[in-house]
């Protein structure tokens, strides 16, 4: 029975000792330790969040870079295309103009040739006509040397006229 009867003295000292221990440890050990631990946990949590944010930002930045790069690439592409187009256009224009010019020159040349030709022809005709007149004068002089021959000619001409 002795074993299971609480002694007052020990209860008294246990109470005092425990209260002292609880008071001192609470103030000088548990609060600082738990505080430090939770502060550190908080810090870790914060650091993790910050790292996450930084990573996201980085991703954003990367995406931005990509976008800018793509835009630049597209711009370059379009500029090149424009240049190519312009070149082609210029060439085409130049060609066309050249063609037009050439055509005009050809036309002019042709016109000149034509007029030259006409002039030449006229001159030739006149020349031929002159020659013919001379020949004719000589022939007619020789032919119409007699009256009879003159009459015959008149007759023939009359016949031709009637036929017309």
């Amino acid at each position, binding site marked *: 029975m002795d*074993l299971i009867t609480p*002694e007052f003295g020990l209860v008294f000292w246990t109470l005092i000792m425990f209260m002292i221990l*609880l008071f001192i*440890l609470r103030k000088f050990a*548990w*609060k600082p330790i738990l505080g430090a*631990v939770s502060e550190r946990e908080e*810090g870790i949590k914060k650091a993790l969040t910050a790292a996450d944010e930084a990573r996201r930002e980085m991703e954003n930045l990367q995406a931005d870079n990509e976008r800018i790069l793509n835009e630049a690439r597209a711009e370059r592409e379009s500029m090149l295309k424009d240049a190519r187009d312009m070149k082609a256009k210029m060439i085409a224009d130049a060609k066309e103009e050249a063609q037009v010019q050439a055509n005009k020159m050809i036309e002019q040349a042709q016109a000149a040739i034509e007029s030259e030709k006409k002039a030449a022809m006229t001159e030739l005709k006149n020349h031929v006509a002159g020659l013919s007149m001379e020949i004719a004068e000589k022939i007619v002089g020789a032919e119409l040397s007699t009256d009879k021959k003159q009459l015959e000619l008149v007759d023939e001409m009359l016949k031709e006229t009637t036929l017309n």
Partner: protein
Amino acid sequence: MRINTFRNLLLITTFLVIGNFGFASSDKESGDDAEFDPKEMILHHVKDAYGMHLFDWDGHPISIPLPVITYTDNGFTVFSSSEFHHDYSGEVIVEKNGQKFANVHEKVYVLNEGETEVTYDAEHHPTNAKRPIDISITRNVFMMMVSVVVLLLIFLSASRRYKNSKDNVPSGIASFVEPLVLFVRDEIGRPMIGEEKYKKYMPYLLTIFFFIWINNIFGLIPILNGANLSGNIAFTFTLAVLTFIITNVSGNKNYWKHIFWMPGVPVPMKIFLMPIEIIGVFVKPISLMIRLFANITAGHVIILALMSLIFVFKTIAIAPVSVGFALFITVIEIIVTAIQAYIFTILSALYFGMATEEAHH
């Protein structure tokens, strides 16, 4: 809890065995040539004492004398326990402050006026002496003070480590202490009480855990002669009472409602449950008290009983068996020191959790 069952079985057997030995040799007086009495030896070791007996040297007991402090009608009387000259049979009478003191089985008695010798009744209780109010620094109190100093040294230096480090990184003893503190917080406080309220109870839970644990360990150190503090009913009683007070002081409306008028059951059942719940309020701390006391005391008793076998059989041949078994039990006891501290703390936390739980219907 298999170990507990196993141990309780051993405890019962041991008590039966010791009881028999005790009866067999109860009529013999203790002395040099007296029959060895394991029951008396074990109970003497398990119970409290006024001096801190370390060992015997050349037939003389060597012990640390501790102060005996009593309060009677004459006021406080303080004297050294060495004045009893290691006697606890009530034969040495110490006269102090006009009163006569005697140590009867490690309990100080004040003799009545005019008496010079302690007389006993049939059950060996003093008839002519009274117990004073006794707040002596017994060996248990002494070991408790030592444990308090050790705990303060450990945890104050650990907390200083945090203060000195810039980034709250534990170093030195703090890195040893931190996992234990976190264990109490994350495995006991948080799950049992709940995220919102556990912080308020953490100082109590941490203190009680380490206080019980270190005193369990101190009880196992052989040279301290089994200062069986955590196996003393007064110690466990005090801690259980503290848990009881905190539980009921922090009990909310929901907690009391569950005790006096259980919600969600028919009225006859409510009436039936009320006395059971009221008994439960008291049984919970009582179970805490008895569990710690019985587990630690049982461990001591088993080890001592095993060692007693050598003297009971009076042969050294049994020594290897005794020492082997005692070693085995001691190893189990080392685990039990932590387990019992853990159980006491987790059950306290569970009761606090029950007392502060909000209604959820």
